[in-house]
């Protein structure tokens, strides 16, 4: 009998070892799959988005004449220069750059090569070169988003003309400009300073960065103290009874409630009952801090629990009261863990989109918010909005907004890791 079973296992051994190896390969396969997903995600977004960090400019000769007199401009203050109307002046100058084109419809097409706000570029040039300005100048004007995309190579020329947003005529002009070395790239500063825009080449992250900043400050101010103090009470002072059990169950459940439910809470309570202003960082901040609170409480409790009882006993033994023991000895030791949890919670809140959609932080807002009660959007919401826009130029903007967002998240998590490494005590 015994002999028999040994024999069977012997004859199966090869098979079994093969199965063993196969099983191990499954594991390696699964892990590499997960790692490959991470890799694809990052390379995909970075490769789509990096081109939004520079923009295309086209050089145009601008000549001052009787209509806009150089002497009078030199006497104007910066504010006055911003007020004057240079639109038709710039337009005529652009025409003058292409003397061979006479048909009116063709002239219009040439204007379409430039961004709608090309006169702003001229004004900026005047203001920054006021001292040594000449009658004849070469000014770089922002290109329209179609030309921008073509120059970056994101937009294929092989698409048939009737489906292309840039006509063959415009392409020929563009090629001529490239040959004359009059098209250049520049770091895209406006992308970080301007608000949203209906023109892809002018749309920037400035407004949503400020909106996110206000929201996160509010989340920090609201959720950290409440979370810290609440956790201290629950971990150090509360007696174990039904009520504290109930609080604990509540916190664990809140941590797992879908974020969109917090959006409904914000809409139902903050906007409709308390009538706080819609679309503002104030409401967004309160909503997200309610969402972050459980995370902070759980992290703080865990780090309080890891402080060994000897610390408490030592303090109590030399005559400290219970509150003194906790506040002077236990909390300082638990603080790094709590701060780490807070930073991770805030990083999550920074990337949260769904609740903000419900409380109206999703509007098209051009102005950069000046305070938490101004209408604003946030970084991920801006990415969502751009993703919804049909124009080609917004695709790289969406990716770029996501790159910035991911950059902030990596930064936050790095800070959390550093704090943990540096201050955490291993007992």
């Amino acid at each position, binding site marked *: 009998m015994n002999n028999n079973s040994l024999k069977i296992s012997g004859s199966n051994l090869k098979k079994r070892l093969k199965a063993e190896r196969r099983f191990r390969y499954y594991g390696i396969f*699964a*892990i590499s799959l997960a790692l490959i997903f991470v890799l694809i995600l990052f390379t*995909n977004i970075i490769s789509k988005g990096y081109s939004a960090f520079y923009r295309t400019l086209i050089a145009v000769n601008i000549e001052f004449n009787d209509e806009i007199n150089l002497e009078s401009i030199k006497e104007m203050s910066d504010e006055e220069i911003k007020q004057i109307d240079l639109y038709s002046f710039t337009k005529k100058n652009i025409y003058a750059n292409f003397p061979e084109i006479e048909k009116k419809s063709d002239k219009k097409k040439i204007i379409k090569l430039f961004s709608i706000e090309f006169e702003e570029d001229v004004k900026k040039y005047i203001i920054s070169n006021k001292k040594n300005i000449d009658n004849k100048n070469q000014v770089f004007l922002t290109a329209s988003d179609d030309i921008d995309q073509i120059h970056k190579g994101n937009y294929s020329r092989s698409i048939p003309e009737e489906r292309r947003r840039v006509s063959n005529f415009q392409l020929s002009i563009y090629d001529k400009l490239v040959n004359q070395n009059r098209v250049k790239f520049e770091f895209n500063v406006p992308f970080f300073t301007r608000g949203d825009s209906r023109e892809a080449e002018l749309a920037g992250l400035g407004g949503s960065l400020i909106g996110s900043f206000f929201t996160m400050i509010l989340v920090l101010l609201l959720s950290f103290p409440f*979370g810290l103090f609440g956790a201290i009470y629950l971990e150090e002072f509360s007696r174990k009874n039904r009520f504290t059990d109930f609080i604990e169950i509540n916190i664990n459940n809140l941590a797992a409630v*879908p*974020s969109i439910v917090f959006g409904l809470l914000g809409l139902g*309570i903050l906007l409709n009952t308390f009538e706080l202003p819609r679309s503002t960082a104030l409401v967004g901040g309160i909503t997200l801090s309610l969402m972050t609170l459980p995370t902070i409480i759980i992290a703080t409790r865990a780090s309080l629990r890891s402080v060994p009882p000897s610390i408490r006993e030592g303090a109590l033994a030399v005559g400290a009261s219970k509150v003194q023991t906790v506040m002077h000895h236990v909390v300082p030791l638990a603080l790094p863990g709590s701060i780490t949890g807070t930073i991770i919670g805030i990083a999550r809140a920074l990337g949260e989109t769904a609740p903000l959609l419900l409380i109206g932080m999703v509007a098209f807002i051009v102005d950069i918010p000046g305070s938490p009660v101004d209408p604003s959007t946030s970084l991920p919401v801006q990415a969502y909005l751009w993703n919804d826009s049909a124009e080609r130029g917004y695709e790289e903007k969406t990716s770029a907004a996501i790159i910035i967002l991911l950059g902030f998240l990596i930064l936050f998590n790095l800070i959390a890791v550093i704090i943990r490494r540096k201050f955490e005590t291993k007992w």
Partner: protein
Amino acid sequence: MGLIILFLFVSYAIGSYYLGYSKSNKARVHDAVRPYSLDKYYGYYLAIWSVVPAVIIFAVITVFDGFFIKNYVLSDLYSLGIDVSEVDLIFTQIENTRNGIQLFNSNDELIVNAVNKLNFIENIFNISAVIIILCISSILLLFSYRKIKFDFDARVIVEKFILLSFFACSLIAILVTIGIIFSLLYETIRFFSQVPIFDFLFGVNWSPQRAFVTDASDTADIENAFGAIPLFSGTFLIAFIAMCVSIPVGLLTAIYMSEYARSSVRNTAKPIIEILAGIPTVVYGFFAVITIAPFIRSIGGSIGLEVSSESALAAGLVMGIMIIPFVSSLSDDVISSVPQSLREGSYAMGATKSETIRKVIIPAALPGIIGSFLLAVSRAIGETMIVVMAAGLVANLTANPLEASTTITTQIVVILIGDQEFDSPKTMSAFALGLTLFVMTLILNFIALRVVKKYTEKYE
């Protein structure tokens, strides 16, 4: 304005603190008596009594004064018989006129009078608020100052106050839960008074746009517009696809990490996989739209399948990637907590490593693993941005993953995004969906946490 008030309160608190501190300190130094508590506790004691009640009164006044002022200013208008619905508009006009914005009726006698009244009553309110707060806090300061004697233990009271405020902080979690339940239930009950609950739960037609009627005159239309079955089916379809990705990958990853991997591999691969859990969902949504959906379409096209540009498959696949770390890290914990003796027993019987894992460890860890699956499912059901961006917005009762289908969360967003009319059944239906979602995830989480907890206790 707010900053000035904050500054005043803070400086008042600091002043009171020094008053208490110096009284105690003086006694200690000059009179050579020993106060019961440390000097600083007398300072805290005074600061608490002088500022905390004042702050509470201030908060109450700022919350309720708007209501009183509005009623007072509009009392004339009410007697003139102006319709209630117009009152808010008129009040806004009055406020705008006061703030220097010229309106078409800014010069009406009615408005001018009202503006004067508004200025008058606001001044009275502000001045009286300042006087009341000052009086109360000075009286309290005086009383508590006189109470400082050297057999008086300020520390006990200060500590009681600290404990009380900490306790109040811990109550916020309950308040949030109550707030969620209240806001969801309130609108849901109103919704079900117009749409029968049975029609909502078992109807197969979801088109809330059709029911944009506020009054229920067109009841037939309303009844047919709010059948949530297509949303439930879409939600479960996408969650199912997501689990098809995340369960095998997540579980195998967890097994390999805890049983096979060297610690160096483990220490690098685990954090990288956990990055997936930290990436914002809007990023996954964008990834699904821009990369996965076209990829699936081109594959479908090459084998002759019609794939719509928004498909449950794309959303589900990406959601599955997102959930991998939830499954893997929880299962990893559970598998690691299986006692070593079980493994050794199995090896002693001559089993190979994979046989041990399949026949001993997995069965032993099964409840915990299932718990982690349930948590992942609840995560998938509640996920919003991926499905909003990649799964489609129109309700469509289908089991075909290549077609667009919509979910509960998507419809909440679609209904409530932008401006909405608040009393229509359409907006209320979003809250009913929210409640359904809340209850579903609550049950799943509750079961999962119970299972995991019970299981981990078993081996401890």
